[in-house]
């Protein structure tokens, strides 16, 4: 038994679920939301903060309107994922983790989205694109630049 009585822990998965909800609503984790989560779940703010910094899914910076994840899983890596990233970097003028000046795109890399049979693969928001070649990137990006985004046309 601990010497000082401890509050009951939150329900299984509750903290992660909460962080996901905040991140989905704001696109990142604002400080006041983390403070509120700590209070409501009855966990120390330090624990909330350490979880928030531990996981790759959460951000402390606001994101662009669209987030591009270039997959660098093994299959994508050996079938040209890095070339895709390089082309994307030169087209948009940003490095992984950065957002374009106009706030349209944030570029990230990801360790496998599990579509390895379609490598190389890239994900824009919730849409996954497979069998990509560097030369179709500009056309693909235009869809998101012009409309509000989303995949309506054929895959690639």
């Amino acid at each position, binding site marked *: 038994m601990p010497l000082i009585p401890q509050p009951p*822990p*939150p*329900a*299984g*998965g*509750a*903290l*992660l*679920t909460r*962080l*996901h909800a905040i991140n989905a609503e704001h696109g990142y984790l604002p400080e006041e939301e983390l403070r509120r989560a700590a209070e409501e*779940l009855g*966990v120390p703010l330090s*624990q909330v903060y*350490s*979880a928030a910094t*531990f*996981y*790759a*899914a*959460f951000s402390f910076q606001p994101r662009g309107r669209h987030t591009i994840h270039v997959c*660098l*899983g*093994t*299959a*994508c*890596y*050996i*079938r*040209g994922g890095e*070339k895709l990233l*390089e*082309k994307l970097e*030169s*087209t948009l003028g940003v490095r992984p983790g950065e957002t374009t000046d106009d706030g349209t795109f944030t570029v990230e890399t*990801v*360790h*496998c*989205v*599990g*579509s*390895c*049979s*379609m*490598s190389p*693969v890239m994900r824009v928001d*919730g849409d*996954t*694109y*497979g*069998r990509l*070649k*560097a*030369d179709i990137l500009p056309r693909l990006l235009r869809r998101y630049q012009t409309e509000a985004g989303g*995949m*309506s*046309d*054929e*895959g*690639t």
Partner: protein
Amino acid sequence: MKVRSRSDLETLRAEGLSTLYPSRLKISVGMATCGLATGAAAVYDALRDEAARRDLDLMLVATGCLGYCQQEPLVEVRRPGRDPVLYARVTADRARELIAALAEGELPTEGALAIIPEEKPPAGSKPAGGLPRLNDLPFYSRQHKIVLRHCGLIDPASVAEYVAQGGYEALAHALLDLTPEQVIDEVLRAGLRGRGGAGFPTGRKWQICQAVPIQPKYVICNGDEGDPGAYMDRTVLESDPHSVIEGLIIAGYAIGAHQGYIYVRDEYPLAVERVTQAVARAEELGLLGENILGSGFDFNITIVRGAGAFVCGEETALISSIEGGLGEPRPKPPFPAVSGLWGKPTVINNVKTLATVPVIITRGADWYASIGTEQNAGTVVFSLVGKVANTGLVEVPLGLTLRDLIEGIGGGGLNGKAVKAVQTGGPSGGCLPARLFDLPISYETLTQAGSIMGSGGMVVMDEDTCMVDVARYFIGFTMAESCGKCAPCREGTQYMHQILTRITAGEGSVEDLELLEEVALWVKKASLCGLGQTAPNPVLSTLRYFRDEYEAHVKEKRCPAGVCRALIRLSILSELCNGCGLCRRECPAGAISGEKKQPHTINPELCTRCRICYDVCPVGAVEIVR
């Protein structure tokens, strides 16, 4: 409706049969992530809109993944009384043509891949003319589907279709006819081993947990499939979520747990969505909750979405993540079966393991044990990806050779190139050379050869893959994913990465190879959890089998595969270049210049050696100088 008894299951089965085998035209589109990544959503919309425009009576269904990803998007056309026909690589245009033909009462032959004979073909069924049966295609002929039994064949959103295929029968049998001990005994005798990679006997794990006289207990489904190159858990969760739910309830009954968790990785949004829907549907029907099927057994499931941490695939880290802590592992023992979630006895099983359980309960331990080999019963799902002709998910009995898999099912190297190696088991596994391809696949043989079975990722590599670069890639991966709790893994992976970066940059020495091996062995010995203990495997296996490539890098400063940027340069062969300008437009560095229809040149000062020009040149005029 509520399913309170076996006869209620029968009612549900009838409903499922009516949508599986309707008396009208039915078209199914494979819409798991693989299909969606290649345009299945556009195909689905085109089918729907064109059918509406032509006033064609049609039942349109989104199914999961059939495993033959190379041929996605896949569309299955079922006319009443006929064997369904499967179409491959369907585009939106082809989908409209398909509807136009069907409206005329015809079935186009173009793009047709195979027929899928139904288990119980309706009376008077005729095979479509001239097409092979799906299971006779080289990709499928040696497969034995147990885990993937329903994937791509049922609507994952329909419990009724799952039940129509025999789903929840095992649950009824376990809860109503068997004691927990009998359930465990069945799984034990079947010889099922954990399909997450470690291969621990599942029944034994359940037995240990059941024997601990502490309540409450928990069961967890590990769907944190982090190994790059492996995606079978995603496919099962997206295509057949109820098989996992059923397995989890049975596991709960066996050990005496009333709460289950399904932990799914964040990178799988569709899997999270489908499994969440499936749990909600099972709750509505009373297949989850209190007094399941009138047995008196209560069970609930909570879905937890991971947040992008590879280490959470390690069971103690996953448990910590559910508890709301960091996804950091802790030393074992005590094992989770004794002290797991909140310190309570916890069984944690992989998605595929749980999806197998219902089949074992229904068909019996003897049946399952008769598949595969003695120590390696049953089947294993592999994801055949990388530089292989046929990519996809394959499920085979254990004991087949790597050659059967890569050359037989996979059809050999991509574009006819020679296969050099296969990487199995993700970042914890190793690279095996082509000369070992006659090795029968089992947990033991792969481990002896310096790799592991792991979660089933099988990444094929050809002559254009540099094995030193691959080792550097994997160590870069584990370095980034190391949680940092223990020093050997945290520091050791960084140190190995520095050495490998040096070697691939052409700055390595012969002594670096000795140093690399020494560090690798210490990281293996001294790390806290499986992540660190296995992280050196890609390094050690490439040093063992591809030492000549390392030596070329350090002694001759040469990359034989033409990958390592510091050791290659690119040039355009003026006698072949036709001046089309494609490379100039695609070069991300603006390093290529030349007049239209005149031979182009590359400025080596600007060139980053990304090789995009090499890939796009239509006449093969770009040369990699090694």
